[in-house]
């Protein structure tokens, strides 16, 4: 694959003596969506969090659009932090529990990165934030606070907060798992829309329908390793590994 947007090589993560990820290699092509599936505790969230170094990997490297997240050229903590801050601003992340800033209105949540990271003027930032909230269908909720929004609306604000930074890649960690069933579709629709517009996305999900329709590639993880990976047609229709078969049987026949 020529010049992937995300390249993960030899990545491993320990928490103390507990090995959570081992030997992860993964390339994500520009403009494609990769779905990560697997049982609870298999390391999906940790992998996602290693991509933007919210968790620092024990071994291995991550590159975003050819730029490594850590470099031996950085001698001081301050230099390392600066590099990370720049790269993190190019990687959007959406959390299962939204993590909106409760003391800020919807539009202020979306403006935050533009102001404190990109140093835009407040009126410019507001303009962009407003446009982004309109894009996710919340143009009428600009001044609502998170506590006044439904889960689905909160998650769309969180998506707008990440998107407004014009990220090179978006990471979704079970973005719909905390939502009431009737609100899931609103969020999935936004995500489908983004994928069709050619945004690079890595999506940890239990929505197998979404993975099948939208993902170009599906990654099945178990026990901290990638067990198998391929286009949805081969993973969902003809998985080769026993563990994949068992997992799919469980989640597809609920």
């Amino acid at each position, binding site marked *: 694959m020529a010049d992937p947007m995300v390249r993960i090589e030899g990545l491993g993560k320990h928490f103390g003596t507990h090995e959570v990820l081992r030997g992860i290699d993964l390339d994500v092509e520009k403009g494609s969506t990769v779905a990560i599936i697997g049982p609870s505790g298999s390391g999906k969230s940790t992998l996602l969090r290693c991509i*933007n170094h*919210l968790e620092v990997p024990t071994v291995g490297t991550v590159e975003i659009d050819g730029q490594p997240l850590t470099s031996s050229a950085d001698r001081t*903590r301050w230099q390392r*932090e600066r590099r990370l*801050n*720049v*790269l*993190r*601003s*190019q*990687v*959007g*992340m959406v*959390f299962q*529990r939204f*993590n*909106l*800033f*409760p*003391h*800020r*209105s919807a539009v202020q949540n979306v403006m*935050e*990165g533009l102001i*404190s*990271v990109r140093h835009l003027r407040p009126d410019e930032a507001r303009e962009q934030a407003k446009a982004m909230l309109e894009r996710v269908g919340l143009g009428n909720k600009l001044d*609502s*606070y*998170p*506590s*006044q929004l439904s889960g689905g609306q909160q998650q769309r604000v*969180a998506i707008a*907060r*990440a998107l407004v*930074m014009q990220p090179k890649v978006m990471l979704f960690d079970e973005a719909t798992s905390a939502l009431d069933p009737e609100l899931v579709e609103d969020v999935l629709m936004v995500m489908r829309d983004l994928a069709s517009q050619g945004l690079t996305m890595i999506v940890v999900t239990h929505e197998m329908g979404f993975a099948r329709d939208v993902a170009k590639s599906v990654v099945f993880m178990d026990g901290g390793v990638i067990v198998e990976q391929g286009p949805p047609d081969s993973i969902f229709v003809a998985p080769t590994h026993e563990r994949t078969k068992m997992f799919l049987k469980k989640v597809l026949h609920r």
Partner: protein
Amino acid sequence: MGLDFSAILSRWPEFWNGTQATVFYSITSLSLAVTIGLLVALARLSFIPPLRWLARLYIDFVRGTPALVQIFFVYFGLPSVGINLSAPVAAVIALAINSGGYLAEIFRGGIVSIDRGQTEAARSVGMSHWSAMRRIILPQAGLRVIPAAAGEFTNLVKGTSLLSTISVMELTRVAQVVVGVTFKPIEAYIAIAVIYFVLNAAIAQGALWLESYLTNKQGGAHG
């Protein structure tokens, strides 16, 4: 025998001056203590180990020794190493150092009580540790610590009575002087007890107002 407040009432200008002094020392010390408390709390949570140790040492020392000893140390002790402070300056410094230690622990508790997801969300848009702290964590922690910080402010107001021992003319000292000439101790001490009580009731009420005002301003109740 009955209580006779007439002698005390005729001296109300002195009590009024004493009240003003008590309020003055409370507010100046508090401002300084909040600054100290915040810096020490941040040092306590720093990733630089020596800063953490120093902050810990400061907090343990301040909380483990009597406030009166701290006041004596600053006012009577420091001159012997060449630092001569007037009683009012020594008073503010000693009270602020004392209260700063308690506030540091209150602030630290507030900061760590904010959900980790808040920091993670802030860092994931590229905010630095300091921006995240200043713009995301501290505003939420600040709201959360108002009740405990108000309690510490109350302790500080009560603590100003210790300044009577270094001849600062605050309420307690005024009462002592008045008792000396009127021989009405019960009345004098009842009078200042009521004044302390009213001051602290005002703080408690003010804290409730501030909390609900900020909560509303931040979009209503949130976890």
